[in-house]
Each structure stands twice: as C-alpha cells, then as structure tokens.
C-alpha cells in the first residue's frame, strides 16, 4: 500500500519535473541590457525624404511628402515620430526588466525602458484582455505577449496616430504591430511586422539584432513635450506634396530610382532589381566630405 502510494507520487513528480523542464526551455532570459548592432540600415531618417523599403499607399505618400520637420516645434506633434515601431528603427539598445507577481512568482510583464524620445514598452504576459477598441490610444500602445515556439511573440494595438518613420511617414491609430523576439546565445533578434489598413499596402517588416551587454545600458527620459516657439492656433508647417523641396535629394545623392525612394510596393521584390538593371548608374566614388565608411551622407 505504502509502496504504491510512493510510486504513484513519484510518477506524478517525474511528470511535473519533465513538464517544468520542457516549459522552461521554451522560454529564454529576456531580462537584461541589449546593445544595438548598427550593421543594418533600418533607420532611414538621415534625409527628409527616404521611404526606401516601405510599401505605401498613395495617401500615405502624399501625407509624407507634405511633412515639414518644423512640425516638431508644435507641442501636440512633438512626440509623433517616436511611436512603438521606433524600438527597432531607432539607434538605441533595449533595457529589459520584468515585473513578477510575488504570490505565484510568475512574470506579469516585461518592460523595455524608454530611451530619449521613445516611450518604452510594457509587454503584458499575464493574459489580460485588451482594452476596448474605444479605449485611449497612446504613443506606446498596448502590448500583450506570450511564449511561442521558443520565441517571445507580442502584439501592439491602441497606438496613437503618428509616424512609422520620424521623417513624417504616417501610421494610423488602426495599425497593429506584431513582434517576435528570438534569442540565439548572446544575440537577440527582434522582428517587427507593422500593418496599417490605411497607409501601408504591405506590412513594414524590420528585423534588428542586439547583443547582450555586460554593463547595464543607461536610462534616458522619454519624449517630453516643451514649448518651442509655436503658439496654439499657429498654422501647421507643411509643403504641398508635389512641392517638397527635398523630394529628390536622396534620389540625386545616391542615384536611386524615384519610385524606390518614394516607397512603391514593387521596389521591395527582386523583380524590381531586374527592371532597373539597364538604367541604374552607380554614383561615383566619394572624394570629399564622405562621412564615415566611405559614404557621403553628410549633407552640404
């Protein structure tokens, strides 16, 4: 009798041990400081009109071309450029902490700390429901995550209308952003898939890698609005879309096709490369004011 009881309990314990081991290995340690690896061009904001790698609707293109950088001097528009997507578009690292329910010792959420203008992100891991679609939309949005197939998967909704590129490429408050965080050793690769039924013909997909940092990344305050010279009621700085003075700057600087710089869908696929094969002329080598690494991004 006693032997049976002990055997039964041992079998249950064994099952629990195996389950615990398998569950733990499906997750990874996300908490820590992750330094950015700047080996990919994902930021695309060094010139005012650079929509490379985007598949924009015509309306999005018009709105983007109407954008004037001086809009940042308006209090209500100052933070619009640094929405949730800026996590992978910006040049900064990720400082991740977790919040744990002390009673059941389970992770309730991960927080990716703010960095300068970016507001940070809370990824809720406790299965809480999303707020009503009529709930407040914020710069950071509302993000729910779960472990799936060895990756951390998350989805952000309830974002405030803003920009997907801080140079004025718009994103509506109907956008959703799906995230996957993959860890391979000390490397964290973050995949972002942003979908917008109004401004994107196809999702904006960006992946960016980070390396685990032995020293903690520093803290920077998030975007805080301040008076910068424009009064309430002042007109919104803008260009007529067909008169943006910077529309061809990037085109001329690197001999790039205009439709690629303006974010046409077809430019994202290999067929396009074949299409421009006989018309594209590489720019000449840079000889002065070349900037870092032999490019000539320094603007005159």
């Amino acid at each position, binding site marked *: 009798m006693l032997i049976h009881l002990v055997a039964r309990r041992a079998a249950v314990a064994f099952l629990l041990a195996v389950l615990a081991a398998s569950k733990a290995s499906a997750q990874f340690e996300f908490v820590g400081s992750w330094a950015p690896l700047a*080996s990919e061009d994902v930021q695309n904001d060094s010139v005012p009109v650079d929509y490379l790698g985007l598949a924009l609707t015509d309306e999005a293109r018009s709105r983007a071309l109407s954008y004037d950088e001086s809009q940042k001097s308006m209090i209500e528009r100052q933070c619009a450029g640094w929405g949730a997507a800026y996590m992978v578009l910006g040049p900064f690292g990720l400082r991740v902490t977790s919040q744990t329910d002390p009673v059941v010792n389970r992770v309730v959420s991960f927080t990716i700390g703010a960095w300068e203008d970016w507001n940070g992100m809370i990824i809720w891991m406790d299965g809480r429901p999303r707020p009503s679609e009529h709930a407040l939309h914020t710069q950071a949005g509302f993000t729910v995550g779960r472990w799936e197939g060895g990756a951390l998967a998350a989805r952000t909704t309830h974002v405030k209308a803003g920009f997907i590129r801080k140079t004025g490429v718009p994103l509506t408050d109907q956008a959703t952003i799906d995230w996957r965080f993959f860890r391979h050793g000390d490397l964290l690769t973050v995949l972002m*898939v942003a979908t917008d039924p109004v401004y994107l013909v196809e999702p904006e997909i960006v992946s960016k*890698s980070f390396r685990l940092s032995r020293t903690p990344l520093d803290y920077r305050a998030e975007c805080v609005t301040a008076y910068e010279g424009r009064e309430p009621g002042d007109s919104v700085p803008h260009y007529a879309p067909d008169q943006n003075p910077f529309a061809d700057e990037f085109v001329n600087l690197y001999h790039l096709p205009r439709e690629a710089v303006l974010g046409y869908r077809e430019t994202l696929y290999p067929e396009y490369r*074949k299409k421009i094969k006989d018309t594209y002329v590489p720019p000449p*080598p*840079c000889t002065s004011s070349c900037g870092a690494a032999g490019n000539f991004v320094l603007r005159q």
Partner: protein
Amino acid sequence: MKTWSAAATVLLIIPFWVLAGPTAVRAQQQGGGAGKSARDAAPIDLTGYWVSYVTENWRYRMVTPAKGEYRRIPSSRAALPLINAWDPAADERAGNQCKSYGAGAIMSVPGRLHITWQDADTLRIETDAGTQTRLFHFSPGASAATSATSATSPGPRSWQGESTATWEPATGGNAGGGGGSLRVVTSNLRAGYLRKNGVPYSERTTVTEHFDVAPLPDGGRLLLVTTIVEDPVYLTGPYVVSPHFKKEPDGSKWDPTPCSSTW
C-alpha cells in the same frame, strides 16, 4: 505513516528534477530524438519557395553602391585597400563574378530560395540569383560545438563552403508549442564580397546562421535568417544582418540568373 511517505516522495522528486531537466534540454540541443533523421526531427518546415522582401539595407542590396562605400560593415584597415581597388571588370575576366554570391552574402542578395531535402540528413538551398546551391549537412547526435569544428573539412574551398547544420528545437511552451530554429555554421569558403561593391571577406571567414520562421498577419509565413559573419582578416568584429523572406505558394516566379560582378 503519511509523514514518512511524503518525505520519501520528496526524496524521489529531487533526483528526477535534477536529471530530467538537463537531459531533456540536452536531447533537444542535439537535434531531436536518437535514430531520427534530420528531416524527421525537423521542428520547423523550411521547405518550399521563398522570396526576398527587401525592407532593410535596400541601398546596399537592390543596387550596387558607390565604390568605396562600406557603411554598416566593420571592415578592418586591411580591407580598405581592397575596397578602394574594387574592379568588377577584372573579377569578370578572372572568372570571379560570383564573389558577391558566396555564403557570406548570398542570403542578402535579392532573389528567391528553393529549399528541399536532398536526402534525409542534407537540406539543400538553391538561389535563383546567381544560381547557387548550398548544402546543409546534419550530423545526427552532433552538438552545435562539434558541428562547428567538423565544418572545416579538408575539401577544396568554394563560394558556399562546407555547412554543418543543427536543429535547435524549442519544447513545450504555453501556446503554439513546437517550433525551434536551424543553426548552420559554414567555413572552408573562397574569399568573397559582403557587398556587391567589393567589401571583402577572407577565406578564413566563418558564417553562423540562425533560420527562424514566423507567421504573418495575412496568414503567410516569414523566414528570418540571422547571419553572423566573422572574419579575423577583414572585419574588426562580427557583421550581423537578418534578411527575411516571404513564403510563396509555388515556383512560378523562379527565375535563375547567372552571377554578375557588376549587377
């Protein structure tokens, strides 16, 4: 009596707990169950046709950048003379027009992949851009560490080198279950270019790749290839990129084109 049985149970739990966890993890790291072929042990399905979706590094991938531009690549001082001496016509004449299609760069070259199982333990990747073929050899039971060592085989160097592959399955999980990743280590390479405009990597280069798949909101699938290029000669540190591909229903858009040193 009850106290004794509870104590006995706890004593039984401890060795199970200690042994079960690491063993399960180790088994997964070694690429699936014993006796299973790599094809049968695959935690993710990579086969089929995939198309580059060029939303990153567009200016370096879709067109040939200016001679001398190596922005975003941690090139060493030793690389600079080669970067500035790039001569695509000379490469063409020397039969080196595939230098920018080697394993260090090929996944970033815009094009399509056709992934199939050549045999039960060899995954084959063909590219229509440059008509290259990569073979990923699985060694059943080999750990990632020994795989990396065995990748340096004594065969002749080639554009695609020798690749050793290991599944890294995830286990359990809360939702979705399954899943995992493919890790590939490639060496024994011919010297090539990381970028079309002649930014070099040497034959001492090792390329480590992690293949992951993710669902897309429209029901499609995305293949993400995190690529780490390490070269003690022409790089000052690892060069990391993560090109991605969308799954296609069939090979109707497959369009093989030969290597070109200018385009």
